[in-house]
């Protein structure tokens, strides 16, 4: 009897662990190459999955896709295809310098209790629309704003400096994000709305997680200047991610803002 209760409790804990793990799926962009000798085409996979970089769960929506050329102009994706497990697009990289390919999400979600039925309700939207989703008589309304950036970088010829975004969580690379080499140390700064993000947890995970028993994430923390560094143990594609929350919301009723950042970086042998 006691044993079965224990087992049931264990199961419940295990289930809740799975639930929370499923919330933390990795969203990623995977470029076919990050270094080009001259004008070329880069093809990019966009997906959400636990395994890096295996498209085995869901495609990453490309509504917020922003591609910025070295001269700051916006580039349109080509040959966009929505597949079941990943979305795919091509980018013609013509200018010498570094391109930023990013999926930027700015949204809000709300939860409330329906007055008539007492049931819990939830809705998603943008900062502008979320207010309309909630009935006027809703009870226990909680709105959370979210801001996310999932990005990768591609260079044609000599790298060029990237223009900082200054909004949300963003990574500033000392040097070029496409100049990373195994055994060398790379220095980064994480900014929050353009200011150093201090004492923030950052994880760096090598791809091909399906071929090893341990995740082997590199767990780091930004210092007082928002800086951290990584010495690349092996060559390959890496996924860097960080998240935080604060109360700097732009939606009036929202109390909390959740911020996410993820970058795919290639390390050469």
């Amino acid at each position, binding site marked *: 009897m006691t044993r079965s209760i224990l087992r049931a409790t264990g199961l419940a804990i295990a289930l809740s662990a799975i639930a929370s793990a499923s919330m933390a799926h990795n969203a990623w962009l995977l470029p076919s190459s990050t*270094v*080009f*000798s*001259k004008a*070329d085409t880069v093809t990019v996979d966009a997906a959400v999955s636990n395994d890096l970089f295996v498209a085995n769960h869901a495609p990453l929506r490309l509504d917020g896709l922003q591609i910025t050329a070295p001269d700051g102009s916006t580039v349109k994706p080509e040959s966009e295809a929505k597949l079941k497990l990943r979305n795919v697009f091509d980018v013609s990289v013509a200018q010498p310098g570094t391109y930023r390919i990013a999926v930027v999400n700015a949204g809000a979600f709300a939860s409330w209790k329906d007055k008539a039925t007492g049931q819990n309700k939830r809705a998603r939207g943008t900062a502008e629309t979320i207010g309309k989703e909630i009935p006027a008589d809703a009870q226990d309304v909680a709105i959370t704003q979210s801001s996310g950036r999932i990005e990768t970088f591609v260079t044609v010829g*000599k790298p060029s400096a990237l223009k900082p975004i200054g909004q949300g969580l963003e990574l500033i690379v000392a040097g070029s994000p496409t100049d990373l*080499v195994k055994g060398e140390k790379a220095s980064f700064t994480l900014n929050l709305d353009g200011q150093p993000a201090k004492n923030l947890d950052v994880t760096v995970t090598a791809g091909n997680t399906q071929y090893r028993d341990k995740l082997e994430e590199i767990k780091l923390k930004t210092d007082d200047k928002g800086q951290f560094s990584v010495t690349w143990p092996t060559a390959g594609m890496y996924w860097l991610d960080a998240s935080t929350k604060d109360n700097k919301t732009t939606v009036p009723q929202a109390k909390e803002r959740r911020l996410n950042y993820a970058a795919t970086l290639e390390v*050469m*042998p």
Partner: protein
Amino acid sequence: MHVRYSLAPIAMSALLATPAFAASLAVNIEIPRLNVSEYHRPYVATWIERADNTVAGTLAVWYDVRTKTNNPEGEGTKWLKDMRQWWRRGGRELAVPVDGVTGATKPAGKHQLSFSEGTAPMPKLAPGAYKLVVEAAREVGGREVVSIPFQWPPTAVAQPTATGKEELGEVKLELKP
């Protein structure tokens, strides 16, 4: 009096010796014969690196320079980046083709290159520690970097060598003061 006259030409020639006979450097690169089903001649970059890994000068770059599609820079420029170390250290700053530097890929065998300081493409080098670096990258094959450290200017005739394991055979540096 007689002594002074006889010494003068010797002193003169000693003064002239340095500019007239600049130190020279020759590189002998062996491209190994490989028994593989699909063989393409490797792309090879040869350069001199300073102690801080910056490029003092690119001496030679061999790639597919054919211009069959009326492409003046050569068919193979797309793959120049596969000579990764050279590309990152300075290759990407070079606008190919470069006279006296870029050339066609070479067959298996030994290839001799000679350079004289101050004559392109060999730059004038400040005295110090340098490295000769040779990087080979082959289509459907591997990549290898071989380097030979040396001091400049050379004080004696020397022929340091280094040997690659896969994509490069013996690389010999011939230094002449």
